[in-house]
C-alpha cells in the first residue's frame, strides 16, 4: 500500500502544473535559424527591460505546434509571418492586408504586432552554375527544362495552398512528380549542394542562399504572398503584460531584410550563437552561456528524466496489462492491439495531438514516451507468460499454492527473461525517441540535434547524437548486469 501511495504521489507531481512557473513569459520559436534568432531577440529585449523572468522554448516545431501551444497558453509570444498566419492558421489566403489579418486573429483572441521590417517569402532557388547553364533568372524560365528538373520541397511548401500547387498553376509549369521529393527543409540544402536535386524552396532571407552560392529565381508574376515577420501573442498576455508587449513592439520596423540575412548568415555560416547575435543586434552583452560540459550534464539530466519516468511507467502499467492480457482473452487482444496502434502513429504527429491536452514541454513528451514504451513491455510480458510450461502451473496448484503465489513465485519468475528483454527494448527505443521531445521544448539530447539540423551544423548535431548513443550503450550494459541479478539463476545457467 505504501508503495502504491508513493507511486501515486510521484505520478501526481509529474502531471501537476507546477512544472510551469506561474509568472514567467514563455517565448517560442519555430525550428529554423531565423525563428531562433527572432525568439532570442524577443527574449533578450524583455530580459533587458523587464523583471519578469523569460522562459525560452525555442525550436519547438512547425506552425501547427506553435499555434496550438500559443492557444493553450503554453507559450505567450512567438515570431511568425503574415502569409503563414493567413494561410495556415486563419485558412484565409485571400486576406492580404495587415489590418484584415489583425481583425481575423483578434476573433481568435490573438494579437499581432506591426511588421518587424523584413519580408521573408517563399522563393525557388537553383545552383548558380545550374542557372548559368540553363539561363535561369525567374521562375518562368524553368518551363523549357521542366520535365527534367529534380526538386526537393519542404512538407509545408508542398501542402500549403499558396505553395507548390498554386505556383505550378500560376506559372503553367508541369514538374515530373517522380522527380519531386518531399524533404525536411534543412536537408534539402544538403541535397542541392550534393547535386542530388536541382531546385529547392527557400526562404528569401535564408543565409544558406549565400553560403551555397544559390540563385533565387525571381517571382516575376508576384505569386508568393507577402511574409512580413510579426510577433504573435495571446490577447490575455498582451492585457496582463502591457509593458512587455510594448518592449516587443519597439522592435517593429527595426529589422531590415539585409540585417536579417546577415544575422542568419552569422548563425548558419559563422556558427555564432543565437544569444550573441541577438545581443549584438540589441546592442547589449550576450547573456552568460553555459560551458559545454555543463550543457551536456543538464541535457543528460533532462534526457534521463524523460527515459526514466517513461520506463517506470511502462513497467508499472505494462506488466499488469500483460498479465491481464493473458488472463482475459478478449481484453488481452484489445490491449495488445491498442498498444501496437500507438506505435504506428508517427512520433511528431503524436506530439502534436498531445499539445492541446498537455501543453508543451516535458509533460506531453513524457506522455508520448510512456505510450511508446508500453508495447514492448506488454507484449513481452504476454509472450513470456504464454511460454511458461503449463505443467508447472498445474503442479503449483496441486501443491496448494494460491493464484497470487503461483503468479509471483512461478509464472513471473519463469517469464522474467522475456519480460526483461521487453523492458530493455523499451528503454533503448525511448532513449532514441526522447530526442524528438526537443521539438516541443522538453530539452534533452534532442535539443542540439534539432537546432543542429535546423542550422545544418553537424558538430552541434553530434553533441546530442553522441551522448544519446552512449546512453543507449550504457543502458545495454546495465541490462546485462540487471539480467544477472533479476533472472533466477536456474534459468540462466546452461548445463
Amino acid at each position, binding site marked *: 500500500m505504501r508503495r502504491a501511495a508513493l507511486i501515486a504521489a510521484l505520478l501526481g507531481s509529474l502531471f501537476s502544473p507546477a512544472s510551469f512557473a506561474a509568472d514567467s513569459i514563455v517565448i517560442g520559436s519555430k525550428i529554423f535559424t531565423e525563428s531562433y534568432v527572432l525568439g532570442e531577440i524577443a527574449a533578450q529585449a524583455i530580459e533587458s527591460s523587464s523583471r519578469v523572468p523569460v522562459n525560452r522554448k525555442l525550436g519547438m516545431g512547425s506552425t501547427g505546434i506553435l499555434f496550438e501551444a500559443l492557444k493553450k497558453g503554453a507559450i505567450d509570444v512567438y515570431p511568425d509571418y503574415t502569409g503563414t498566419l493567413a494561410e495556415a492558421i486563419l485558412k484565409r489566403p485571400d486576406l492580404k492586408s495587415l489590418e484584415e489579418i489583425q481583425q481575423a486573429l483578434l476573433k481568435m483572441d490573438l494579437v499581432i504586432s506591426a511588421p518587424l521590417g523584413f519580408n521573408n517569402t517563399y522563393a525557388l532557388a537553383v545552383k548558380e552554375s545550374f542557372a548559368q547553364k540553363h539561363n535561369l533568372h525567374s521562375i518562368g524560365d524553368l518551363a523549357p527544362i521542366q520535365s527534367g528538373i529534380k526538386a526537393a520541397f519542404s512538407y509545408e511548401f508542398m501542402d500549403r495552398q499558396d505553395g507548390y500547387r498554386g505556383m505550378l498553376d500560376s506559372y503553367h509549369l508541369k514538374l515530373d512528380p517522380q522527380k519531386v521529393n518531399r524533404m525536411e527543409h534543412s536537408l534539402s540544402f544538403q541535397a542541392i549542394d550534393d547535386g542530388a536535386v536541382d531546385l529547392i524552396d527557400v526562404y528569401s532571407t535564408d543565409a544558406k542562399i549565400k553560403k551555397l552560392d544559390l540563385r533565387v529565381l525571381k517571382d516575376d508574376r508576384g505569386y508568393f504572398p507577402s511574409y512580413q515577420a510579426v510577433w504573435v501573442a495571446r490577447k490575455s498576455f498582451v492585457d496582463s503584460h502591457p509593458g512587455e508587449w510594448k518592449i516587443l513592439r519597439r522592435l517593429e520596423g527595426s529589422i531590415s531584410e539585409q540585417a536579417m540575412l546577415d544575422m542568419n548568415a552569422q548563425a548558419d555560416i559563422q556558427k555564432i550563437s543565437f544569444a550573441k547575435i541577438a545581443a549584438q543586434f540589441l546592442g547589449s552583452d550576450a547573456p552568460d552561456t553555459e560551458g559545454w560540459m555543463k550543457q551536456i550534464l543538464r541535457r543528460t539530466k533532462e534526457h534521463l528524466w524523460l527515459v526514466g519516468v517513461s520506463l517506470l511507467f511502462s513497467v508499472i502499467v505494462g506488466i499488469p496489462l500483460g498479465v491481464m492480457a493473458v488472463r482475459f482473452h478478449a481484453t488481452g487482444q484489445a490491449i495488445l492491439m491498442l498498444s501496437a496502434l500507438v506505435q504506428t502513429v508517427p512520433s511528431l504527429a503524436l506530439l502534436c495531438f498531445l499539445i492541446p491536452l498537455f501543453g508543451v514541454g516535458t509533460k506531453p513528451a513524457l506522455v508520448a514516451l510512456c505510450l511508446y514504451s508500453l508495447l514492448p513491455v506488454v507484449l513481452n510480458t504476454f509472450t513470456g507468460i504464454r511460454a511458461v510450461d503449463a*505443467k*508447472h502451473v498445474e*503442479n503449483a*496448484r496441486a501443491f*496448494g499454492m494460491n493464484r497470487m503465489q503461483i503468479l509471483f513465485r*512461478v509464472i513471473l519468475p519463469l517469464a522474467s527473461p522475456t519480460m526483461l528483454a521487453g523492458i530493455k527494448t523499451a528503454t533503448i527505443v525511448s532513449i532514441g525517441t526522447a530526442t524528438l521531445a526537443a521539438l516541443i521544448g522538453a530539452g534533452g539530447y534532442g535539443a542540439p540535434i534539432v537546432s543542429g539540423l535546423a542550422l545544418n551544423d553537424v558538430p552541434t548535431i553530434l553533441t546530442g547524437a553522441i551522448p544519446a548513443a552512449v546512453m543507449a550503450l550504457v543502458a545495454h550494459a546495465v541490462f546485462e548486469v540487471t539480467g544477472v541479478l533479476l533472472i533466477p539463476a*536456474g534459468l540462466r*545457467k546452461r*548445463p
Partner: protein
Amino acid sequence: MNYAISAMLKLQNITKTFEDRQVLTDVTLTVPAGATHALIGSSGSGKTTLLRITLGLLPFDKGYVKINDQALLSFTQREWSYRIGYVPQDGGLFPHFTGKHNVSLIARLRGWKKDRIENRVEELRKLVELDAGILDRFPQEMSGGQKQRVAIMRAAMMDPAVMLLDEPMAALDPLIRRILQRELKSIFQRLGKTVLLVTHDLGEAAYLAEQITLLHEGRVLQTGSYSDLLLHAADPFVTLFINAQRSVPDIKELR
C-alpha cells in the same frame, strides 16, 4: 523412521465426462493405509485424468474421493494439498529454484520457522539418501535420479497421509531405473505412507506395489496382485496387456 499419519485412500464410482466423451466410468479403487498400489494402463486409458481428479485439480461428475473417510469435496484445494504429496512426472521441479528451495517452498509459504524447515529437510534428505550438496543445485544441474529424490522430498515435506507418484521412472534409462526402483521401494517402506503409483510399466508396478489396478478405456478391468492378473485374468485384455509388456519378471522371483 515411521511417520504418524498414514491413511486409507478410497476412490468410489468416479465418473468423468469431457463434453460428450466419457473418459472414466465407475472407477473404484481402494488403497489401505500404508500400502502401495499401482494404477496401470496404456496411454488414453484415463489414468492421467484419474490422477488429476485425485489431486483435486479436476471436477468430476459422480462418485467420491476420500482419505480416511474425509471427502475431497469438503476441502479447499489448499486443505486437500496437505493430505496428498504429489510427485509429478520427471519430478516436475521448478527450474528457477534450487533443490532445497523446491523442497521447502510450501513450508515457507505456510510460515514454518527456519529451524523447523532445516530439520525437516535434513530428515528427508537422509531418508532418500541424497548427498547434501545436491540440494544447492538447480534442477538442470541434477541427474534424473537426483531430481526424482528431490521431488519425493518435496512431496513428503508437509507430511501428507498419501503420496501420489506419476510415472516416477519414465524418463530414466533402464539401468538407473532398475537401481532406483529398488531404492524407491525402500523409501516407501521407510516413509510408511499410503502410496498410489501411476505407471504404464507392468514390471515396475509388480515390483513396487502389492495391488495393481488395470485401467482400460476409462474402466477398471481388474484389481489384484500381479499373480492374480497373470493367473486369473478377469478380461482377455488383461492377458493381452500383460503379454504385450516385454520384461515380465518370473513369478517365482516375486514370491
